[in-house]
């Protein structure tokens, strides 16, 4: 499992792995939104939590189809399916690797982009915490979507269509945490629900994803 994790990380980090793509997209979005909606600070601060969460979500979406598609193309997915570790664990490890190269860096650069978007000072801690708790759910749900569409040649659009509605609860609770955090309101409920979605998805979706892969490899 460790070998698989390291292999996935190495593949993602080397050139052509698409590691920088999500980050660059996130950065561009945060630069373009103020240019588009105008520089007025109060409004930017109000929409910043939502924009940052939507940006992180879309940046995550960009690299989803790489989770399984590349392995399927060169045949290593068949090897992984016959490997001694269960396919569920393979899915979990690959989702984890995806999170380490997208979700985690996104979480780390988010405060810097919050400055660009004039996020109020009270929000930074909550932004990092909510992304830290929420992005794993994005990766796991994305891995499920990638597993369902792995057999299709041009599954990219379909993958987005399948995954977007699944992302809704995570997005709502995640952005709500930051919004409440900037307003100084009580945020224990959305925070707990966000963590619950991540934990629940990480616990259950690998099984669904693994069964989808088995169907696709049949």
């Amino acid at each position, binding site marked *: 499992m460790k070998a698989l994790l390291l292999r996935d990380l190495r593949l993602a980090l080397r050139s052509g792995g698409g590691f920088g793509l999500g980050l660059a997209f996130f950065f561009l979005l945060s630069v373009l939104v103020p240019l588009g909606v105008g520089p007025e600070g109060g409004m930017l601060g109000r929409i910043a939590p939502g924009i940052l969460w939507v940006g992180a979500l879309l940046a995550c979406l960009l690299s989803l189809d790489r989770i399984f598609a590349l392995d399927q193309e060169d045949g290593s997915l068949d090897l992984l399916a016959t490997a001694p570790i269960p396919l569920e664990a393979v899915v979990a490890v690959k989702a984890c690797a995806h999170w380490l190269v997208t979700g985690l860096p996104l979480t780390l650069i988010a405060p810097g982009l919050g400055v660009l978007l004039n996020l109020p000072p009270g929000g930074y801690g909550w932004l990092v915490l909510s992304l830290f708790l929420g992005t794993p759910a994005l990766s796991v749900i994305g891995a499920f979507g990638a597993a*369902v569409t792995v057999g299709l040649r041009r599954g990219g659009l*379909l993958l987005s269509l399948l995954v977007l509605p699944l992302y809704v609860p995570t997005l*709502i609770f995640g952005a709500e945490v930051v919004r409440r955090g900037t307003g100084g309101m009580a945020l224990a409920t959305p925070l707990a629900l966000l963590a619950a979605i991540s934990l629940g998805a990480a616990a259950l979706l690998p099984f669904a994803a693994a069964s989808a892969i088995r169907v696709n490899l049949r």
Partner: protein
Amino acid sequence: MSIWEYANPKKFMALSAGALPWTVGLTVLLLATGLVWGFFFTPDDYRQGSTVKIIYLHVPAAMMAINAWIMMLVTSLIWIIRRHHVSALAAKAAAPVGLTFTLVALVTGALWGQPMWGTWWAWDPRLTSFLILTLFYLGYIALWAAIEDPDTAADLTSILCLVGSVFALLSRYAVNFWNQGLHQGASLSLDKQENVADVFWLPLVVSIAGFILLFFTMVLLRTRTEIRSRRLKALLARERVA
């Protein structure tokens, strides 16, 4: 004699062929009664005027939009557990019908909302959950359409339907949490106090019964079509081999 015998396509075809004329007739009768009664023989609401009459399309369509998904969930489960092809095909047949009901509910709601709320669209929890439901339907239908092998498609869409149901439910509560509603409460409920007034209630129940039968009829028809196209494909394949 058990219900599973009807999972046999031949038996299903025979039974549904016998049942269809009846369900079609009943659907037409109930829908005509409910809608005509509702549109022309009920009084105007004292605040909403005649716009209230859209309830006879809106409420049944919205109910069936959700129930169609639940039916797809049940048939998907049956496919996963017992692998009856009729079940998978019924789920496939129900999806576009459910999508249509969802769109009908959204459009009639917008038409009613424009004069009443002064807006076609509001990010109200119910409206938002219906928009999300539309996305779920679209994804489900697109997945069916994208995969060539019918068994693979049935398996994958069933898995998607199971996972989607959980997330659809989650989204429902998430949007409730996220925004306060503009939409009124339920028009029908087991609690008599919450119901609409009796003059509106009776034709509404009739149209709901009509919509349920309409859904049933459409699913039967579409399932029959799916079974026939499956048979046709099998025949063509056999011919090519011969």
